[in-house]
């Protein structure tokens, strides 16, 4: 009964999505206020029924209902409760239900928070979100039904992929989807602007907080994924330029660019067309990411051909959404016609450079991700593009960008008084120079020109971001307003992440060795001794656990317990690294495999400042939060007066 309720809920949600798309859009076109007012109850109803479907899936998992195929394939009697819940989005069908739940959530949030918006705009935004929902609900119901029954019911389930049995990864998809799907909101705003042919500064002010909110979730979600890869994939890398990672990173890059052009559109009424294009591109890249991850194309272009329904559906959906949006963009000119310009040295210029460089990075990553797929699909050979390509094409635009970030955030709108600007930048430049040189020469030891430049850039971004808050604390400057705080904090986070990346890339140490019991290995002054291997039983796995004593100059530092797990049901081995996390560095030990004669292959790593990579991302997210909380975005009261 429970799965059927879920199924019916999804169908009802689809009906409401259709109503949400048809009535408000038709009403906005015909000027029918009552039709437009249907948007809000429809949005609320769609959320309610999607949530009910999600709850029914959750109940099926908790009750071990193995007569539901999806549950039978991705759960197990021994699976701990937390992971039974996370298993809902542990595979294709359920993750789409989560996707749709989040989309309904964003839609309802827009409906709730948009009282101050003009009725036509509100109706159009919600209508477009309804259209997107139709696409995804149809996708679920036609190709990926999670409530499909299995007859006869399985006695026990096939278990969740052991890689996913981890707290961080349980949280990763919801956060990432909040970001991905959140980009549908600026997309809907952009389409509404194109439909009405009006794009003004108020439009940008309404769109901004939604964009920033989506970006915030995307930032934290990506960081969480990177952290998970670091400790769970077992081998200490934190970014692999894997197509799945790129799929989430490209919308982030486009979304970041969008957030910045929106600032120009709001404050100065400029860059309207770029903003629209970026809003379309950012959501398009989210859909593309979904296609890449969910269609099986990445497993093999040919595997996609053997099960075409799902991939084809998303591809057609992507083509319709993007094609429609771009056609609308081509034929409707909604860009504000600016009467004003700006000088060469101004914040507008800096943000234009920012947009160009971020877009270039997006295109280059996109190229490296799609080219092998295209070549394979055309049967022109199987190639893969290695990380060095991505590293280079990413650093190439990022290095100048980081320099511009530091300088640009202190430039004034319209035209900058160059002398005053120089005076403002003097202190952070000096601080960055000193900190960069001291860190890269005295603390860590010189490691090449490029690393030195990287250190200086990171220090420069942090120092420039902290300039105004520090001046305020020293009572030499005004108190920054909330949105400026947000910007400074986020840029500081960017600098912190950059610092972590540079330091861990340049001074991280990595050693693979064969280690017999009792034998020890010295890495960067630390002594790692493999004391013994013991057997450990988990709730649904057995593990061989190494006991590794770490000491420095004969004094014990810590004991690490790396594990090699074998999960009972799927019988797949998993490496669980032993990590001593610290501010200065992480000590990292992972067990490879038994080599015979009491020896194991062991990977030992020292990762200086690796935590800063994720900490910086959290700081960026915090910056986004501060920016949204600025009073100017609370559109109640004042907003309605502005109409």
């Amino acid at each position, binding site marked *: 009964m429970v799965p059927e309720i879920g199924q019916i809920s999804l169908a009802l949600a689809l009906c409401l999505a259709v109503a949400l798309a048809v009535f408000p859009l038709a009403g906005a076109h015909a000027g029918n206020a009552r039709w437009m007012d249907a948007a809000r109850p429809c949005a609320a109803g769609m959320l309610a029924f999607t949530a009910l479907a999600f709850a029914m899936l959750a109940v099926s998992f908790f009750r071990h209902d193995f007569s539901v195929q999806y549950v039978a394939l991705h759960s197990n009697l021994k699976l701990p409760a937390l992971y039974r819940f996370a298993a809902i989005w542990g595979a294709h069908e359920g993750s789409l239900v989560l996707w749709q739940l989040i989309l309904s959530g964003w839609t309802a949030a827009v409906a709730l928070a948009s009282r101050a918006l003009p009725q036509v705009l509100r109706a159009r935004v919600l209508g477009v979100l309804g259209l997107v929902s139709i696409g995804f609900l149809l996708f679920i119901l036609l190709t990926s039904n999670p409530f499909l029954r299995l007859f006869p019911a399985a006695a026990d389930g096939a278990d969740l*992929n052991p*890689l996913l049995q981890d707290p961080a990864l349980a949280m990763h998809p919801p956060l990432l989807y909040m970001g991905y799907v959140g980009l549908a909101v600026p997309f809907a705003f952009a389409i509404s602007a194109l439909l009405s042919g009006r794009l003004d500064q108020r439009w940008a002010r309404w769109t901004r907080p939604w964009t920033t909110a989506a970006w915030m979730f995307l930032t934290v979600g990506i960081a969480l994924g990177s952290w998970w890869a670091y400790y769970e994939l*077992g*081998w200490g890398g934190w970014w692999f330029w894997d197509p799945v990672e790129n799929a989430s990173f490209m919308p982030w890059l486009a979304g970041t660019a969008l957030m910045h052009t929106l600032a120009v559109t709001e404050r100065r009424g400029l860059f309207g067309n770029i903003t629209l294009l970026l809003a379309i591109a950012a959501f398009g890249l989210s859909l593309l990411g979904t296609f890449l991850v969910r269609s099986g194309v*990445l*497993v*093999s*272009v*040919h*595997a996609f051909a053997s099960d075409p329904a799902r991939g084809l559906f998303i591809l057609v959906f992507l083509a319709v959404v993007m094609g429609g949006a771009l056609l609308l963009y081509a034929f409707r000119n909604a860009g504000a016609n600016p009467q004003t310009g700006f000088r060469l040295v101004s914040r507008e210029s800096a943000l234009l450079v920012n947009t160009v460089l971020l877009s270039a990075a997006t295109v*280059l990553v996109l*190229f*490296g991700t799609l080219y092998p797929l295209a070549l394979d699909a055309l049967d022109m*050979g*199987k*190639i*893969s*593009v*290695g*990380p*060095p*390509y991505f590293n*280079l*094409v990413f650093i*190439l635009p990022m290095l100048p960008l980081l320099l511009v970030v530091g300088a640009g955030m202190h430039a004034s709108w319209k035209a900058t008084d160059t002398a005053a600007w120089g005076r403002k930048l003097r202190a952070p430049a000096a601080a960055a120079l000193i900190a960069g040189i001291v860190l890269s020469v005295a603390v860590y030891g010189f490691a090449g020109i490029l690393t030195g430049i990287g250190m200086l850039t990171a220090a420069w971004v942090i120092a420039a971001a902290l300039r105004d808050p520090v001046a305020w604390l020293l009572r030499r400057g005004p108190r920054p307003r909330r949105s400026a705080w947000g910007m400074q904090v986020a840029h500081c986070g960017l600098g912190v992440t950059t610092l972590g990346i540079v330091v861990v890339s340049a001074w991280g140490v990595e050693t*693979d*060795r*064969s280690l*017999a019991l009792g034998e020890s290995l010295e890495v960067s002054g630390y002594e790692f001794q493999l004391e013994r291997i013991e057997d450990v039983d988990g709730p649904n796995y057995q593990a061989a656990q190494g006991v590794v004593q770490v000491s420095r100059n004969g004094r014990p530092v810590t004991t690490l317990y790396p594990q090699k797990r074998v999960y009972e049901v*799927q*019988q*797949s*081995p*998993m*490496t669980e690294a032993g990590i001593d996390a610290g501010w200065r560095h992480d000590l990292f030990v*992972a067990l*490879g*495999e038994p*080599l*015979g*004669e009491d*020896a194991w*292959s*062991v*990977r030992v790593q020292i990762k200086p400042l690796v935590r800063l990579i994720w900490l910086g991302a959290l700081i960026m997210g915090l910056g986004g939060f501060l920016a949204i909380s600025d009073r100017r975005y609370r559109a109640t009261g004042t907003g309605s007066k502005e109409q």
Partner: protein
Amino acid sequence: MKPRRRRMMAMTSGLVCLAAATALVLTAFEQNMLYFYTPTEIAAGVAPEGKRLRVGGLVERDSVRRTPGSLEVRFDVTDLDRSITVAYAGVLPDLFREGQGVVAHGRVGGNGVFEADEVLARHDENYMPPEVADMLEERGHPRDASLP
């Protein structure tokens, strides 16, 4: 004349920078593009010697040989027609097994041994490395073939 000349200068330097960046990107792309070869192709000498490439197939049963006290390991990879010996020094991936699919990145050495610097196995129990599955299929074997 002067502002015009300045604009010309700015545009020229911009174009030079763009051209340099494009050249750099294309070189990086060219150098990091790894082509996939089958053991049969390598045995036939189709694969360029000394260039980095990928080879894939199934690990032959009882072919894994280790050098005691080190991480050096050799194993044979087959496409069910021909096989090639792969030499590697490092930690093998969790899902590396005899009889199952594997992809190695590296170079063909002078003695016909493939010197790998990276070895990849399946992501989980359900999937083969895609290149290997496609290759087996093209050679008329089931996509998920494994050695007995």
